[in-house]
């Protein structure tokens, strides 16, 4: 609606001017002449007015006001707005109002007319104000709130009010508060997570915003609450936007999580939080290039963070699901978690072994309706939400539907550790296992118990066997109950003859001690060995294969080819090569073509190595990847063009199958992923749940 139509609606054309000739009319009309400055009416004027029909006079006056306003006041107001001073403008508005209203009110006509005139004036003023005045007023209020200098704002606010512009003025004030609060929240609290923004914000709201506002206007309680809600929502919005980074910065960012728990007032905000986290984590975390361990750490952080935001765990349940599903697909998830639970030194999450010691139910069995403390699940809970209070370990176990995968991995780890222990000392492993009993049922742990028991029994048996025969010298054995151990992987090879003889003798003694039972030997175990070379003596703990390998080089300075070695060991060349590379890495053997020789003295060799080191320029990783994988770029490109989107696993498998002698593919999957990510950065590929050629 344009201004002219609105004006016409306010003042309908007057058709009652039939008294225009009368004397009383002339007196009153002179008094109401809008070209004059308003003065109080004389007695004569009042009498004249009383003799007239007030409605007719009002109609005529309204009409006069209308046309006078458009001709004089409108341009004035428009002009005034141009000098950017709301105070001056407010004064002008006030003068205008007085000019049109005061002389009429002084006539003491019917109050209904007074109100009508006031409303009409306000409407005229409001439509005459140019649009930018709203922003200017808002700015004035913003300044007033922030600078704690509300004098001018108070004047402007009250003038606008008196002139009937409440709606306009209040809406300016509301947007001023909104703007002030929002920018305060963003400017003061963005990325500052180490102290409570919520407390600080509440203090600021009360001491700055509310105190300024109550100076400008009388705050009602509902308005006070509205300001508080506004502040909470603004803080919640900021923290929601930052949620993924906050979770990554746990535990330093805990105060920011407390901000969230204090401000998540509505289901809408809770939903926003969940959705934002889901989309941020799917972009930043659940990608082929991110190592599993990092995802596990983030999963743990997510657990702790969301439990802090909302202890019942409804939100947690929703944000953790996709991470769990993703981790389930990674082949190394179980072994990494088990390494943490078993407190492996090299595991960055070994701290979770602490929380294992706390007793927990094996697995939640659903809602217990007989529990007097039972309350229904919140409305936004997923249908299979379980409100059990799961700790970190519980949540990690919860990644998989059953504990079997963990038990299997624990057995594997335990088996390989047990076979390495010295002197049959199982105390450390036994106490680790004891802690796990808090989490897994006795039945599930049964094979682990038997494995420990086997080694303890082996100690007694071994002592007995050595007692009855002193020619077994350094030979000892673990004797295992094969049905309760994971199958021991081994490649066939031949032990040194004297060891074979010792084994046989050991087996005979065993059968004497345990009638009707026999031993079957495996090629695994551990050997403590020391090598006496010309200029040094080195001690090692090695596998029986590695020991057998190095025994071939005893008392000989001759080199040996891999063929000879694998023949003597009765094993494949690949197995022999594995053992050889261990001794080369340890500096005991040196490889020249296919011939291995013992490094009796280290002196001159080390010089050569040092020179070599100087010559080799350190390559950066990207260049190395380009060197090793650049040749495969055309294959990758062709593959992805033909097959569309592919995960790194598939590409890796494909390239491995392409590998040939002239074009060998030797990269690990990790290296391939790094290289693919490089191609993504170069905009050659794009990544979204798989790699794809960018068009």
């Amino acid at each position, binding site marked *: 609606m344009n201004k002219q139509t609105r004006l016409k609606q306010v003042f309908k054309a007057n058709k009652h001017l039939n008294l225009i000739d009368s004397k009383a009319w002339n007196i009153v009309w002179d008094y109401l002449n809008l070209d004059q400055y308003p003065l109080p009416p004389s007695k004569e004027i009042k009498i004249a007015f009383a003799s007239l029909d007030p409605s007719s006079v009002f109609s005529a006056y309204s009409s006069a006001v209308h046309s006078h306003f458009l001709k004089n006041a409108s341009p004035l107001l428009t002009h005034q707005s141009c000098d950017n001073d709301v105070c001056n403008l407010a004064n002008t508005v006030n003068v205008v109002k007085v000019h049109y209203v005061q002389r009429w009110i002084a006539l003491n006509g019917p109050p209904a007319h007074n109100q009508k005139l006031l409303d009409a004036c306000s409407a005229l003023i409001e439509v005459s104000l140019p649009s930018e005045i709203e922003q200017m007023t808002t700015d004035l209020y913003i300044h007033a709130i922030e600078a704690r200098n509300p004098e001018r704002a108070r004047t402007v606010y009250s003038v606008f009010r008196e002139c009937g512009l409440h709606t306009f003025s209040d809406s300016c004030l509301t947007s001023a508060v909104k703007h002030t609060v929002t920018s305060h929240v963003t400017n003061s609290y963005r990325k500052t997570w180490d102290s409570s923004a919520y407390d600080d914000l509440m203090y600021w709201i009360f001491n700055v915003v509310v105190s300024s506002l109550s100076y400008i206007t009388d705050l009602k309680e509902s308005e006070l609450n509205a300001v508080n809600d506004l502040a909470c929502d603004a803080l919640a919005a900021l923290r929601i936007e930052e949620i993924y980074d906050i979770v990554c910065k746990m535990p330093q960012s805990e105060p920011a999580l407390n901000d969230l728990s204090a401000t998540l007032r509505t289901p809408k905000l809770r939903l926003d939080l969940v959705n934002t986290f889901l989309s941020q984590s799917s972009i930043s975390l659940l990608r082929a290039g991110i190592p599993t361990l990092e995802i596990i750490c983030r999963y743990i952080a997510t657990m702790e963070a969301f439990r802090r935001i909302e202890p019942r765990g409804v939100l947690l349940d929703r944000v953790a699901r996709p991470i769990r599903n993703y981790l389930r697909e990674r082949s190394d998830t179980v072994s990494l978690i088990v390494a943490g639970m078993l407190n492996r030194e090299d595991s960055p999450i070994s701290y979770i072994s602490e929380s294992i010691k706390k007793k927990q139910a094996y697995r939640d069995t659903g809602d217990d309706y007989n529990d007097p403390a039972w309350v229904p699940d919140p409305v936004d809970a997923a249908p299979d939400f379980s409100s059990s209070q799961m700790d970190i370990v519980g949540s990690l176990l919860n990644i998989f539907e059953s504990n079997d995968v963990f038990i299997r991995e624990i057995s594997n780890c335990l088996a390989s550790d047990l*076979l390495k222990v*010295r002197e049959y000392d199982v105390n450390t492993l036994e106490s680790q296992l004891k802690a796990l009993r808090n989490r897994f049922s006795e039945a599930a742990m*049964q094979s682990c*118990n*038997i494995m420990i*028991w086997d080694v303890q*029994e082996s100690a007694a048996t071994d002592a007995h066997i050595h007692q009855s025969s002193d020619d077994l010298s*350094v*030979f*000892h*054995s*673990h*004797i*295992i*109950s*094969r*049905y*309760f*151990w994971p199958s*021991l992987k081994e490649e066939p090879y031949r032990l040194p003859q004297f*060891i074979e003889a*010792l*084994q046989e003798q*050991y*087996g005979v003694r*065993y*059968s004497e001690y*345990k*009638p*009707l*039972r*026999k*031993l*079957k*030997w*495996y090629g*695994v*175990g*551990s*050997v*403590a*060995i*020391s*090598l*006496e*070379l010309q200029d040094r003596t080195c*001690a090692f703990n090695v596998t*029986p294969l590695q*020991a057998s390998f*190095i*025994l071939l*080089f*005893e*008392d000989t300075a001759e080199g040996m080819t891999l063929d000879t070695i694998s023949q003597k060991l009765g094993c494949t060349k690949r197995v022999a090569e594995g053992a050889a590379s261990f001794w080369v890495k340890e500096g*005991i053997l040196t490889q020249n073509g296919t011939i291995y020789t*013992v490094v*009796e003295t280290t002196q001159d060799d080390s010089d050569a190595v040092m020179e070599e080191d100087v010559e080799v320029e350190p390559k950066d990783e990207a260049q190395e990847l380009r060197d090793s994988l650049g040749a495969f770029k055309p294959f990758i490109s062709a593959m992805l063009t033909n097959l569309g989107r592919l995960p790194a696993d598939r590409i890796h498998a494909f390239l491995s199958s392409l590998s040939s002698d002239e074009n060998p593919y030797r990269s690990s999957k990790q290296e391939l992923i790094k290289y693919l990510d490089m191609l993504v950065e170069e905009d050659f590929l794009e990544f979204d749940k798989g790699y794809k050629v960018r068009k």
Partner: protein
Amino acid sequence: MKVHIENWQGVAAWHWDVPDEEVCGICRANFDNTCPGCKYPGDGCPLLVGTCSHSFHEHCLVKWVMLETSRGLCPMCRQPFVEGERTRVLRQGRDLDLLDSDE
């Protein structure tokens, strides 16, 4: 180079000296595994070979013999069950009276 072996720790699995495919005629589990009632194999759940050459977990056979309907017969060949010499040595001291009485 001289190689000194300080300690050689081998690994072996024990097994009962019976054909590998042979299982307990009562519980059908391998003898190197336990009977259904036991947790620990080997010494914990020994083997019993009858003169009829049928073998059982000792625990399985005792349970069977306790049944009235078994009438002390081998569940496989229905001949009176008598423990053979081979496993008698296993029990040195801890006798199973109900089996010895047949001898």
